[in-house]
């Protein structure tokens, strides 16, 4: 028994301390380095922030290049799928186009009326800057859903700016480097956005689930009579985003009365996005 314990201690000590013939450092030294970096990073130590910022700039570019072969395979796969689904997509688009044409006639009147009403309630009515950005890295890990774009503080990007794919909100800027930024997608578990569910203007919070859909929080589904197909827009609460940016629609409500939202934008297909800072220009 005594010998077994000695063997265990010798094996553990050897694993931590013995450098090995081809190694420059023992594991204990590098473990200590890692813990130091982690702790200093937690308390926003300046040196670690500089190191992180420098690494970000370099690694995002290298990742973009290294990912080229996989992106090629991914794009080819998506292209093949879109060819296979061409006929069905065409039929669906024709149907959607007719519906949109009908809606379009009403929209111009509603827009002008809306602008007039917003001016009266002193809401955010315009964007002060709109920056087009290319998605450099979209390696969405199973745990964190984010993308890297090729615009940073040099281009006027600020923390918290809204990021849109066409006209649909997809996330917000959570990390800004000199030439690159990280965007936290709405599908991430850590994303929380104040939203409004139309047509009843029900206020709620949209959180990500780590999947392709989001979930509504703090909403009594039965009380407010939410239904599948209800549209989700930003509510404008908090003053970061303007109200009325389309996000998605209620896709299904489960047995425990949790409402799940499907996003208008496909987060796996992001190539170019718009980064926007909304400000009150009244």
């Amino acid at each position, binding site marked *: 028994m005594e010998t077994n314990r000695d*063997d*265990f201690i*010798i*094996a*553990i000590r*050897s*694993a*931590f301390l*013995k450098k*090995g*013939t*081809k*190694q*420059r*450092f*023992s*594991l204990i030294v*590098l*473990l200590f*380095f*890692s*813990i*130091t*970096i*982690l702790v200093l*990073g*937690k308390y926003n130590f300046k040196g*670690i922030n500089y*190191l*992180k910022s420098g*690494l*970000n700039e370099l*690694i*995002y570019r*290298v*990742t973009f290049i*290294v*990912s080229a072969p*996989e992106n090629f395979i*991914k794009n080819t*796969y*998506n292209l093949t799928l879109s060819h296979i689904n061409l006929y069905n997509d065409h039929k669906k688009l024709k149907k959607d186009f007719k519906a949109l044409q009908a809606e379009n006639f009403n929209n111009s009147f509603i827009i002008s009326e809306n602008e007039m009403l917003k001016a009266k309630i002193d809401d955010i009515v315009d964007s002060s800057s709109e920056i087009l950005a290319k998605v450099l*890295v979209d*390696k*969405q*890990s*199973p*745990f*964190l859903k*984010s993308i890297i774009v090729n615009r940073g503080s040099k281009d006027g990007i600020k923390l918290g700016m809204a990021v849109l794919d066409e006209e649909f909100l997809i996330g917000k800027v959570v*990390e800004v480097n000199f030439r690159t930024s*990280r965007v936290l997608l709405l599908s991430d*578990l*850590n994303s929380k956005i104040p939203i409004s569910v139309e047509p009843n203007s029900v206020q709620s919070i949209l959180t990500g*689930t*780590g*999947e392709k859909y989001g979930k509504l929080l703090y909403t009594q589904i039965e009380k407010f009579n939410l239904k599948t197909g209800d549209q989700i827009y930003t509510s404008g609460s908090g003053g970061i985003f303007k109200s009325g940016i389309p996000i998605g629609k209620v896709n299904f409500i489960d047995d425990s009365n949790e409402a799940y939202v499907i996003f208008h934008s496909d987060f*796996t297909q992001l190539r170019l996005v718009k980064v926007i800072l909304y400000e009150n220009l009244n």
Partner: protein
Amino acid sequence: MAFSKIPISRKILSLGPIILLYVSVLNEFDFNYLEFKYFSFNFPYILIFYWSLKGEGRLSYVFVFIAGLINDVVIGLPIGISSLTYLLICVFAVYLRNITLRPSLIKDWFFFLFTILVTSSFFYSIVIIFFNIKVNYYELLFNVLYTFLLYYFFSYIFGYYLNLLRRTND
């Protein structure tokens, strides 16, 4: 002259595991675009464990440490956390190497399961408790499961590669 007999190609062959580790952390190949629900695995865990256990020092700990930093930057995790996890995997693998007299793939495989369960628990405890980052536990569970299952498959490929390396060094 065979390709593997040329000194430069021998050097490249010996750097294979490190190159593969860096490509995997930079690229994060995850097959997400195939949209298999819950399918994901942690290739660096498999690679680091195998080459620390069997690689006879070919996988430098310093490179493992840097690979961890790169992984944190690419995924957007607190910097240093992946390095810590990767190095802990090295510790487990070296410990197993020290106590093993007669190597067996099945024993290695189950020790690998124990290793990734401990290191993943450690990793996500830090992420959740100290950095308040939420994670999906189902994703995590399936990630560990698939990583464990695929170790058996990759150990054959790496074993073949290791034999090739040994032959070229003879």
